[in-house]
């Protein structure tokens, strides 16, 4: 691209009042750029000016105005590089002249006067100019062949709903169900929870109608008694091998070595060649992940709706509740079977069961519910209580709960069941279930009745939860180097979730969308809704891949990581650290890119010690150049030169938080310069080294929270950055630099008010350490 540059400085929103625009213009003009100023760049005149410039051939625009997070449509010029210099939020609003005074008439030509705000503005302008020189317009990555078929794993209520939704939107769908018949758990019930207003009565299961509906869609293919042996490739171009359950085939996915096999007898890590040999041995008879099944079926995206199995308590796990001791203590799933078979009878002797106690929490001190429980287990207890009342006019159903969760309109169901004179509800702690003649006696403490109670019961039902299929098996069997399943499910109580608040349906694998009880214990209605979400996500994926753009969370991003393989040392770090398993490596360790799996976070770029991974508009060099463009004053310039601190700011939460802080007129230290990064995971330590060797006094990273309740948009980025920053601390020590000069902060977007103290605290630490001894070299 033959760049023709133009620099445009806006004087609106207080910029003109605070800054010396003439001096700022000179900064760019001295570098040889044409500069134009405008009272309000976003106004009619301003936009017309920019349009005229673009029409006149300018294709690289540096707009020194407001935050890139606002007015992006106004300042969008297709085919042009547009770089925004955030003067308004990061300079003017956050650094009032009352605190950092402008030079008086007398001081104007005083060389010793330090105008912090003006220096900051000119630094940011210089950084932008340095950046635009180093970046290019991206070109889209297009697959050679794109397959738009959607694979739905699981033929229960969720899978069928997802298939129907995708089929209605015009997509071809294949359902793979491991059982010989469709329907899953939803087909085994007497009744199901309501799905329609007024949500008061349980109803005949909708599953059969849904199965029937499948027949009217010629674009849905159903494979029963079928499981996925492996899914190879990438979104838009998956190659799927199916097999019969239990079969052993060559295209069964290979598994990574378990940790204990990666070490020798003395516990030392094995060499890579030995490791590879062991890996091959471990997966003998299975084709490598990079070998594609020539008979495999092509799919573009996958909806994982593999569902759940009822939790089966361990032997003696609930001995105090009589489970496993008497057959009359059953799980809710077992009770449903009894109810589906006819009138409710006592399992031990077949006597009519007219008194049934539903226990929602195992008790024994805590108030936690049974494992894998949720609102659905509360609702199921209500539903099953009604079975007792339907079967017997003098039947009595008791529900003893610690939590009665009936969210949204399901509250109506609770109210309706509660209204039945023979249903008795109380919060309470069940202490014991013991045999009582032919029946049972239930003891409960801390009840709403104000005293410990005893209830005679024919059957006791434990509200055990729904175990996701991925707990037992990866199910998706991805032929990915990082392994066949999702990582970190333990963080989500074994559910196949990603980050359920921000990104429902999305998993840690692009193109694979989880729905239904695989994600959380869900009711039929919730599962159907969840299925719609996953189906839409799968479609979004296909249509993004089709246009060569990133799916999420950087939806629409045209860039993708470009590897300069000649210099690759096969260290495998990129393959191992990619949070999304986007890279596979061959036996020598050379990474194989799968651009449509990629989410463009740049974690590979941050990981690469050879710095051979770059994006068209975001590269090691572009950020390094920005860092180097920051003017670091020394004793040559001033008697007491101000400090310079670099802040590498995550674009997802930290950068908007800074804008919000500025909007609220919060201030932070004027010696700090911010560089936005895609994710802290993309921060390459070379940038920190660049800053420190240039004489900057400290560097901090500001990004999302990491750990068990991480908020990183790219799952692992801030965590990896934390590890890298700790490692760089060791390297700094060897250079006689204090490790405290580099730090990392975690912020959530709503913690904008804490940012000034964070920055001030860090600058305070640096002030304590004194200036960087390398300054001026």
């Amino acid at each position, binding site marked *: 691209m033959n760049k023709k540059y133009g620099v445009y400085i806006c004087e609106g929103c207080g910029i003109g009042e605070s800054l010396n625009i003439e001096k700022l213009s000179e900064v760019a003009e001295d570098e040889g750029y044409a500069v134009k100023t405008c009272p309000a760049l976003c106004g009619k005149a301003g936009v017309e000016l920019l349009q005229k410039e673009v029409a006149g051939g300018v294709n690289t625009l540096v707009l020194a105005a407001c935050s890139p997070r606002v007015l992006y449509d106004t300042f969008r010029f297709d085919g042009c590089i547009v770089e925004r210099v955030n003067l308004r939020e990061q300079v003017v609003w956050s650094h009032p002249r009352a605190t950092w005074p402008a030079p008086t008439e007398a001081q104007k030509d005083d060389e010793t006067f330090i105008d912090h705000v003006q220096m900051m503005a000119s630094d940011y302008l210089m950084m932008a100019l340095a950046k635009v020189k180093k970046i290019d317009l991206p070109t889209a990555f297009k697959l050679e062949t794109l397959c738009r078929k959607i694979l739905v794993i699981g033929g229960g209520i969720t899978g069928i709903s997802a298939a129907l939704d995708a089929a209605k939107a015009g997509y071809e769908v294949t359902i793979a169900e491991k059982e010989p018949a469709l329907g899953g758990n939803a087909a085994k019930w007497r009744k199901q929870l309501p799905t329609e207003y007024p949500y008061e009565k349980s109803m005949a299961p909708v599953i059969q109608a849904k199965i029937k509906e499948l027949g009217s869609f010629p674009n849905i293919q159903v494979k029963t008694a079928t499981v996925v042996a492996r899914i190879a490739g990438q979104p838009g171009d998956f190659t799927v091998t199916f097999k019969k359950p239990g079969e052993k085939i060559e295209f069964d996915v290979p598994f990574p070595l378990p940790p204990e096999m990666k070490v020798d007898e003395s516990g030392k890590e094995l060499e890579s060649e030995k490791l590879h040999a062991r890996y091959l041995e471990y997966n003998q008879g299975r084709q490598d992940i990079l070998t594609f099944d020539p008979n495999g079926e092509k799919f573009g995206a996958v909806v994982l709706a593999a569902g759940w199995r009822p939790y089966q308590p361990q032997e003696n796990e609930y001995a105090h509740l009589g489970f496993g001791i008497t057959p009359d203590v059953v799980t809710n799933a077992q009770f449903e079977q009894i109810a589906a078979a006819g009138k409710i009878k006592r399992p031990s002797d077949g006597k009519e069961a007219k008194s049934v106690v539903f226990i929602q929490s195992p008790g024994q001190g805590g108030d936690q519910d049974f494992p894998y429980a949720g609102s659905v287990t509360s609702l199921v207890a209500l539903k099953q209580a009604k079975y007792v009342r339907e079967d017997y006019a*003098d039947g009595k159903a008791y529900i003893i709960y610690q939590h009665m969760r009936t969210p949204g309109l399901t509250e109506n169901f609770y109210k309706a069941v509660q209204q039945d004179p023979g249903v008795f509800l109380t919060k309470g702690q069940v202490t014991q279930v013991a045999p009582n003649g032919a029946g049972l006696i239930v003891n409960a403490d801390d009840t709403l*009745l*104000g005293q410990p109670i005893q209830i005679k019961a024919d059957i006791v039902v434990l509200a055990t939860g729904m175990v996701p299929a991925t707990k037992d098996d990866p199910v998706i069997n991805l032929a990915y180097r990082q392994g066949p399943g999702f990582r970190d499910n333990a963080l989500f109580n074994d559910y196949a979730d990603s980050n359920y608040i921000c990104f429902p349906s999305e998993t840690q694998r692009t193109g694979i969308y989880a729905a239904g009880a695989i994600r959380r214990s869900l009711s039929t209605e919730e599962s159907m809704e969840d299925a719609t979400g996953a189906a839409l996500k799968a479609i979004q994926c296909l249509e993004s891949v089709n246009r060569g753009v990133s799916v999420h969370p950087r939806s629409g991003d045209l860039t993708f990581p470009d590897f300069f393989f000649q210099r690759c040392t096969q260290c495998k770090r990129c393959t191992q650290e990619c949070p999304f398993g986007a890279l596979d490596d061959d036996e020598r360790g050379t990474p194989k890119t799968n651009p449509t799996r990629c989410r463009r976070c740049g974690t590979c770029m941050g990981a690469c010690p050879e710095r051979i991974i770059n994006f068209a508009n975001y590269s090691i060099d572009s950020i390094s150049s920005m860092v180097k463009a920051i003017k670091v004053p020394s004793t040559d310039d001033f008697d007491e030169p101000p400090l310079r601190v670099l802040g590498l700011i995550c674009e997802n939460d930290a950068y908007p938080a800074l804008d919000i802080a500025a909007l609220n007129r919060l201030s932070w230290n004027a010696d700090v310069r911010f560089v936005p990064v895609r994710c802290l995971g993309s921060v390459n330590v070379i940038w920190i080294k660049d800053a420190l060797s240039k004489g900057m006094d400290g560097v901090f990273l500001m990004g999302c929270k990491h750990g068990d309740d991480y908020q990183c948009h790219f799952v692992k980025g801030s965590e990896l950055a934390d590890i890298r920053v700790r490692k760089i601390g060791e390297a700094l020590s060897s250079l006689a630099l204090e490790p405290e000069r580099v730090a990392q902060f975690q912020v959530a977007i709503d913690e904008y008010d804490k940012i000034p103290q964070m920055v001030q605290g860090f600058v305070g630490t640096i002030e304590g350490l004194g200036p960087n001894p390398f300054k001026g070299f």
Partner: protein
Amino acid sequence: MAERILVEPDLKFIKDLGILGGDDLKKCYQCATCSVACPISPDNKPFPRKEMIASSWGLKDKVVKSADPWLCHNCGDCSTRCPRKAKPADVLAAIRAQAIVEYSRPRWLAEAVNDPKKLPILIAIPVALFLVVGSITGLLNFKPDLSGGIAHYKFFSTWLVDMHMVPAMLFAVTVLALGLKRFVGDIHQNALAEGKTDQQTIEVAGFVQAVIRVIPTILTHKKFSECTENKDRYIAHFLTFWSFVGLFIVTSVIFLVLYGSYLLPTGPLHGPWAQINPIKWLANISGIALIVGTGMMIKSRLNKPDQKSAYKDWFLIGIAFGLGLTGMLTELTRIAGWAPVTFAMYFLHLICIFFLIAYLPFTKLAHLAYRTAAMVYSEYAGRKFVK
């Protein structure tokens, strides 16, 4: 720590409470807003929240054999504030009605009083008695000699009246006394079991002292004045209460004068009494107060959407309002000189009186005995009901 109880819900009890106006009972989700709103809820026993769950669990003995529901004066603060519209005030009223049924004998009569289908039978009893006994004895004269002006005793002899009313009253008093005896025993047991009292036995002297302490509260309707939501009920109930007191005094005086005057040489003194007689003033004032008081009750019940009015409520208000109305109309039509009309009114009036007296232990009116007993007991037992 209270003892572990075996819970055996009584489904019929829950259904009966529903019929008696407590059909929103099951809506309660135990948030205890009612206990916060209730002016008489003690600090250590959330009232009426406990009553709500006990009755929704069908634990009849816990609520029916307890004094607490009787301490409620149905001010309605709980029902107004209940987020679930479970109407605790109506549930407590239903519990009280159920307690009346429980403690009165014969049981079938108690159930008949609460059953609208049995109303014709209840009416037929006094009508048949009056007609049959009146015809046999000749004390009912459809063609009386009215030459000395209209006098009701000539149509319906006072002997015939008292031949019914005196036994009816004795019957009522006996039924109430027996009921009260069991009731007080039960509420004492309940109070012991739930730790509401430290008195092990009921000691007569202390109990009588408690009666004396409680009476001013009843006479002044002090508890009613604590209500915020249903302040108008204070006036209505106050008027009705005092009209009954007035009418009781009037009836007693007339009764004594009438039967006393048989000893006079001039013979018995029959009504009507002169309008200038203070007793007549009291009678008229009480009669009007009764109509106004019960009229206000009718109006307020019709206007209150968050208060249920069950058959039992209309039954008693109907009798009381009918009593006042027929009484005043009897007088007015007599003055107007419309003999057949005034006799008919008198006949209806007597039916109302019979209803009031004979059915008293079975209707809501029995609250005058049970509530008083409960209040006295609570005072005695140290619940510090009277502040």
